[in-house]
């Protein structure tokens, strides 16, 4: 198609889009005008009923807890799937490299030399800054995962922040330290326990004689750390699951990078 033809086609399409867009925007309700029935109801009922001061988390972990369980299992399944794909590729690469290494002109070179190549590349400022941030970031992650029922935050955000602490260790050039910090079986166990814990708390509602994921734990006093019943527990197990899943994914990607690369 010629340039003129493409421009003409674009002009027609853009004019059509413009008409539809203006038509749609004119019919929108006014800014801040909300008529959702459930939203208005929950805004009045949620805090006195659940004793959790963060309504958003009482919705995610209680009123629509089954949806959150679905989301958690999506993350669980995608992390496991990625690990399966990457591990097989890594095994293949490792075999190739073992063959290459046998007839390489540097016989003294060991597996462990590869991360040290990277270590030399990171700057001192990055290393110091990264290591100094690891502790605060870990505390922040635990804080978010444990305060979901009180303040904005919750298990998902806390879990990703915990995994980010590991990335900081990696950025600081401590591949060996990172390899020790994320013993893969423990991380896998944490991920599995987090996912299973969510389902187990849900079954707890059935055992207590009512429905799945019912808030069966005593709600406690408002704005205390143990408040909101299962909301705090579910937030904690989601934190465990998300931290495990992201750590696993980051670690597998980094192993890929180090085992297949690091050489020119």
């Amino acid at each position, binding site marked *: 198609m010629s340039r003129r033809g493409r421009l003409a086609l674009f002009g027609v399409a853009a004019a059509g889009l413009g008409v539809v867009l203006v038509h749609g925007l004119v019919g929108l309700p006014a*800014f*801040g005008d909300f008529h959702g029935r459930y939203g208005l109801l929950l805004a009045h009922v949620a805090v006195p009923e659940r004793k959790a001061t*963060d309504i*958003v*988390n009482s919705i995610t972990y209680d009123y629509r807890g089954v949806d959150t369980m679905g989301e958690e299992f999506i993350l669980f399944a995608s992390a496991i799937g990625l690990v399966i794909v990457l591990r097989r590729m890594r095994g293949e690469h490792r075999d190739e490299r073992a063959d290459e290494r046998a007839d390489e002109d540097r016989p003294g070179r060991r597996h462990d030399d590869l991360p040290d190549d990277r270590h030399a590349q990171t700057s001192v400022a990055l290393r110091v800054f990264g290591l100094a941030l690891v502790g605060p970031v870990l505390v922040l992650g635990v804080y*978010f995962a444990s305060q979901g029922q009180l303040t*904005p*935050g*919750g298990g*998902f*955000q806390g879990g*990703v*922040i915990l*995994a*980010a602490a590991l*990335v900081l260790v990696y950025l600081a050039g401590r591949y060996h330290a990172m390899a020790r910090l994320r013993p893969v079986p423990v991380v896998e166990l944490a991920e599995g326990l987090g996912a299973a814990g969510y389902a187990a708390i849900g079954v707890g509602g059935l055992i207590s004689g009512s429905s799945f994921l019912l808030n069966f734990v005593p709600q406690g006093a408002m704005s205390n750390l143990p408040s909101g019943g299962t909301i705090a527990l579910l937030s904690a197990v989601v934190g465990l699951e998300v931290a495990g899943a*992201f750590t696993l*994914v*980051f670690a597998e*990607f*980094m192993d*890929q*990078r180090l085992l*297949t*690369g690091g050489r*020119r």
Partner: protein
Amino acid sequence: MNVLQASALILVALGGTAVVVCRDPLRQAIVAGVFGLLLAILFFVFQAPDVALSEIVIGTVGVPVMFLLALAKLHEQRDDTPEIDQ
């Protein structure tokens, strides 16, 4: 809508355009991280702090780290086999 919210919307529009205009994948990953931060500010000024926190952890930690690691991997493959370059 107040001035803060309007300027946050404009910043997000500019940031999104910047992500699209940026052609180098490495820079694009960093610009996408900054765009995630702008989105988080937008959610915050529209009084959704929970969503803002989720956006911060995903937009500035999760997605850029994935992109950078994937780019590092692609970069090495390209070094190994120059014929797939471009």
